[in-house]
Each structure stands twice: as C-alpha cells, then as structure tokens.
C-alpha cells in the first residue's frame, strides 16, 4: 500500500517532483484506467477496451498498452511513444482522498511519500511563500477531471451492461518469431448487438452522447495491429542483442 499523506504547504514546501520519472512509471504498465474525457485523445493512439477488476468483477475502461502483465509497448527508450499520456499516469504521485471530518465531503490531495518521483530536482509544489505552483494546480485539475470522469465512465459502463453490449475479445496472436499468445480478460463493444438495438434504444444513446465513446472504442481496436508490429520489432531487437557475433 502506498503511504498516503495529505499535502500541506509547510511540510511539503520544498518537495519536488520529477515529471520524467512520473512518465517512467508507465514502463511496466499494460493497462491504464481512463475516463470518458480522455476518449478522444486516447483513441488516436491506444486501443480502448474494458477489463474486469479482479477483486470486484466490475468493468473498467482502460488504454491497452501491452499484451501481458509488465509489458508497455508504448514506452520505449525512456519515453512514451505517444503524444498523449493517460491522466492516471501523469497525476502520480498524487491521489484524491476524502476528508470526512466536515459535514460535506471534502476532497483533499494526497501524496504518496514512497514514490520514487519525489526528488531533489524537478517541479516544485509550492513557491517560497507557500503558494501552490502551476504544476500543483495542474495536478489538482487533473485529479478533478479524473474524479468527475470516473462517475460518467461508471454510468457509461452501466449503460453498456444494461444493453448487453459488452463481449469478450479473443485475441490469438502469432508473432513473426513463432511465439503464440492468447490474450484473455479484455472486452469490447459487441457490434452485432449494437446494430440490433431498437431505434428507441439507439436514439437514447445518441441523446446521452454515448455514441462517440462507443464508436471510438470500436475504431481504436485498430491500434492492436500497431502493437503486434511493435512487439515483432522488439523481438527482432532482442534477437540482435542475444545473437552471437559472427
């Protein structure tokens, strides 16, 4: 468990975060949870799919970064090969906590004190007078986007579930080097069922602005081809590395 503590302009006045290291947290991440607000940008680069939380069985929407645990095909040579990096990477090492001492639920920003991204060079959280730096306010708005986005995303998933529009994806991938991989546990939109919806159900989706996210999920699956190709390239590279010089 991360060691979370509410940020405070006295205790953390001189704390600095290294954004380079934050991005680096994605190196072994094969799935990053995203929210509805991110669909437009995410869909230009990553497959957007659903996966089940192993503790609750509930669906969440994720940007698929790799085929196996620990693999991120979008992270290479110390940086993301993508203009867009999901918020759930960039907002680290900050978390939203809630303060129940007040009558109304208040949200507070917490910091993971064990995070390797807290360094002695990089972005400051507060200026010398204890005022938040731009970096921190950006983090605040990112956390707010995620918080509100998660609610909308949950409703989106509930709609998909209620209309029975989710289907399991079976990905049987064969790589150039002969390796075969069966990717399990990812889900997507069932196009047949989508097309079989009644006009009434369909126009409800349109009115709720859910057609765009649905179609962008379907469209985004094309990026899987890029990922397969990327893995082939990596396999080739590894071969060169391990091959005995002639």
């Amino acid at each position, binding site marked *: 468990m991360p060691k979370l503590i509410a940020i405070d302009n006295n205790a953390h006045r001189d704390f600095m975060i290294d954004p380079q290291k934050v991005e680096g947290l994605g190196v072994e991440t094969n799935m990053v949870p995203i929210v509805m607000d991110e669909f437009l940008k995410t869909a230009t680069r990553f497959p957007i799919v659903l996966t*089940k*939380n*192993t*503790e*609750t*069985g*509930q*669906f969440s929407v994720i940007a698929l970064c790799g085929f196996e645990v620990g693999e991120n095909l979008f992270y290479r040579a110390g940086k993301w090969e993508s203009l867009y990096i999901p918020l759930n990477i960039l907002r680290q090492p900050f978390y939203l906590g809630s303060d129940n001492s007040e009558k109304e639920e208040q949200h507070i920003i917490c910091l993971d004190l064990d995070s390797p991204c807290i360094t002695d060079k990089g972005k400051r959280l507060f200026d010398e007078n204890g005022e938040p730096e731009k970096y921190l306010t950006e983090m605040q708005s990112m956390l707010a986007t995620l918080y509100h986005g998660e609610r909308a995303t949950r409703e989106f998933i509930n709609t998909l*579930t209620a209309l*029975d529009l*989710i*289907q*399991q994806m079976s990905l049987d991938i064969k790589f150039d080097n002969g390796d075969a991989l069966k990717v399990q*546990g990812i*889900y997507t939109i069932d196009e047949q069922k989508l097309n079989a919806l009644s006009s009434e159900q369909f126009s409800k989706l349109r009115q709720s602005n859910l057609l765009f996210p649905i179609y962008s999920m379907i469209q985004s699956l094309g990026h899987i081809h890029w990922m397969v190709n990327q893995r082939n390239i990596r396999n080739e590279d590894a071969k060169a590395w391990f091959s005995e010089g002639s």
Partner: protein
Amino acid sequence: MNPTKEIVIVGGGSAGWITAGLIAAEYNSSNGNELKITLIESPTHKPIGVGEGTWPTLRTTLLKMGISETQFFHECDASFKQGAKFAKWVTGKDDDFYYHPLMLPQNFGKTDLPLYWNEATNVGEIQKSFSDAVCLQEAICEAGLAPKKITTPEFGSVANYAYHLDSAKLGIMLQKHCVEKLGVHHVLDDVTGVNVHENGDIKSLATKTGNELPADLFVDCTGFSSRLLGQHYGVPFIDKSDVLFIDTALATHVPYETEDAPIASHTISTGQKAGWVWDIGLPTRRGVGYVYSSKHTTEDAAMAEYEKYIGPEFSSLDVRKIPITSGHREKFWVNNCVAVGLSAGFLEPLEASALVLVELSAEFIASQLPSSRAVMDITARRFNEVFRYRWDRIIDFLKLHYVLTKRTDSDFWIDNCRPESIPQSFQDQMELWKYRTPNDSDFDSNNEVFPAASYQYVLYGMGFLTNPAFNICKGSAEELAKTTFAKVDSLKQKILSDLPKNRDLIEKIREYGLQRV
C-alpha cells in the same frame, strides 16, 4: 382437433413455478403463440419447502427462464454446491468419507481409470482416494473454495457447480418472474372439484370462490396430496420402501457461530445409526436434517443422534418432522393431466433427485408440448416410459449408496445389504461390475439421469473392487492413466491458488454482482 391453447398448473411450490417458467419461456420466445398459462395456488397450503440442493441443470433452467445469476444469489439465499461428501457411509469411523463431485474424471472414457488407480494404489504409487486421484473438485471442496471467480461470467464456471438455496425463496422469486416477465397468470384459490369430459379428460377445475378454470392440459404440482393424478384419477402408488427405507425427515435451520464462518461448497451427508444427516450451507444459515427409517429406530433415539450432530444449540431450534413414503406413481401422465414433483413421487433426499426430476419433467413438457389433444396420448405414453425408466435408474443409484456399506452397527445398514431389498436388475448390473468398471455402454439410453462416472465415484469411493477377468493393458492406456493422475495433481496446484474462498465469493456476488459476459 382443438390445438393446445391453455395450460393450468395446480400448485405453487418449486415444481409449479419451474414448470410454469420453462413452458412460458419456451413459448414466449417464439412470438405469436397464444398459449395461456395459469398457475392456481392455494392461499392456505404452504409448499413443503425443504429441498435445498440442486443439480448443475438449474443453471440452464434459470438461464432459459431469463433469470440472472446475480438476482438468483440475491433473492434465494443461494450458495455453491460442488457435489456431495459422504461421511461415515462405509465404516462409520471418523476418517471415513468419499466424494461424489460434479466434474467428470479427467480423461474419462479414454482409459480405464479405476483399474489403474487400484493398481497404482496397490503398489504404493498413489495414496489418494479415487475421486481425489482423478478429479480436482474434492481438493477444491476440502479447501473451502468456490467453483469460480468474481471475474467469471454469470453461469460460467471454473469447476462445475450446482446450488444450495432456500427453496421457499426460490418459489417467491420464480413466482414474481413468471408473472411479471413471462406472462403467467397467477390465481390464489383452492381447487374444490374436477369437471370432466366424456373421455375422462379434465374439462375444468372448480374453485372455492366459485370460478371454473378450463384448460387443454392440467399439470398436477400439488405435492404429496397428488390432487389430480392420485386423488382424481386414482393412479396407483408404487411403494419403494422395501428398497429405500427412509420414511421420516427431521429438518431444522442452524445459525452460523459467527457471521464470517466458512460456507461448505458441497452437501455433507453423514451416515447415522438408522439413516443419514444432510448438512447444507447457505450464506445466512445451515439447513440440517436427519432422515431415518422408523422401522429401525425410535423418534427419541433419532432425535438424540440429531442433537449430537448439531451440538448444544439444538435445544433452541425448531425441528419439523416430515413423513416420507418412498415411491412413485405407476403413471405420471393420464389423459390431459401430468404430474410434476412430489405428486408424481418422492424417494428420499439423497443426491437431490427430486428437483432435477421436476426440471426434467418440465423440460419434457415444454419441448414436446402436444400441439393438440389428438397427439397427446402419444406424448403421454412416451413421457410415462421415459420417466418410469428414470425413476427406476434413480432408485438403483440411490440404493447403490447403501449396499456397499461395511457398517454392521445397526439393522438399518445390515438390512440395506440384504439381496431381497435390492432390485434384481441392479443386482445383475453389480455382478457385471465385479469384473469390469461401469462405462457409458451400461447407460446408453437417452434418458439416463446419473452417468457412468457417478457410479464410478460411488463404487470406488466406497471401496468396491473390480477384478478384471483379463490382464489389464500395460501400454498406452496405462501411460494415459498415469499422465492423467499427474495432470490432476498439477491442475490442482494451479486451481487451488486461483480460486477464492466460498464465502468470500458469495459475499462479493451479493455486493458487486457477476457480469453477463
């Protein structure tokens, strides 16, 4: 002749609602049918509501009726059942038990597993019970694990499973679903009379409030009273108490000691002096009952044994006593009336055969519903043949659990082994199995209830010895058997670390639900 347009089902227990639900689901789904289904239920008679164990078939039944598994877990106080553990049926000692799991032996039918298991045991290569050597389910049950994960879709499984449930709650859920979703008409009234046509068919039922319910087909789900088949048509009852001695049930609900006490994911059946105790774990309580033969013990003695099983809290529990007459009707479908459930018969609670017969009967009626009265007699004849066969085979299989006992501590067990209490056809079958193991060719009817694998689990679980007349093969068949034992071991290791505790999963299902996909 008139097409079948109206069905009246009499009785609102599990049998009535399952029958209503399966027929309605079948004909609702093919649009344009004008089949009217009415279920009349007495406002005063309560269903017997004791049966708490099902077969895996209930998953298909619920799915067909369009009930989600999550809803079922919420509304029926349901839990998982991965077969039965039979304790103290062979020697009666504390370490005496065997399993009848719900998964087939690994590679079943591809090699003669019982023979190679026996040989490997004799030479000391294996120190495991038959079911533990050929199937991973015993290990799952012994570890208290669920048969699936929270990420497994509704009705999907990692290990095959059935359910334990609160049957009164099942009735309530099915009633609501049948009426609200499947268009079944529900009438609360008492049947007071039967009006007939000249050919003996039932024309209508007269009710206490002065109404008449006409129909083309009547389904008798009136429980032990067998209001139409037994009382009206006088179809004789074939008593089987000379084969199956159980004639009394004592039933109660036992609270868990703590809220988070483990829930067994299998039925535990424990042999007693004059019968056996069922122990079924639901999420909120256990259902525990003692079924015994009153010819072999007194109620006081039975009660004392029952109390000993349950423990100190026994004195604070309400115990219901239910008489059982083991047997079934000679026919189940007469004229335009068919009996489903206890009205057709009941043997004893062993192996949960009552509810599965309800499902099989309802399924038969739903899929082969006579299009008109003209062809109904053909369907009736087939139904009677099929179900007579099924009752007979179930009787054989239930009797099997008793005839291999080595217990001699009471006349109940001794009498059970007397040849005159064992059907001749079954004695013949057992004679053959002394020289070869049960296989699918012994059970080649389309209407089998218990498959060859079930017979193997019970036979070899109880220490039955098959001495093959021919030397067993040493070649590829033996290799495959050895590979199978090793495969079961390795699968077991993997699955045991992967599956959640039974209670944990049930609580998660109640909190988050299962996904449809």
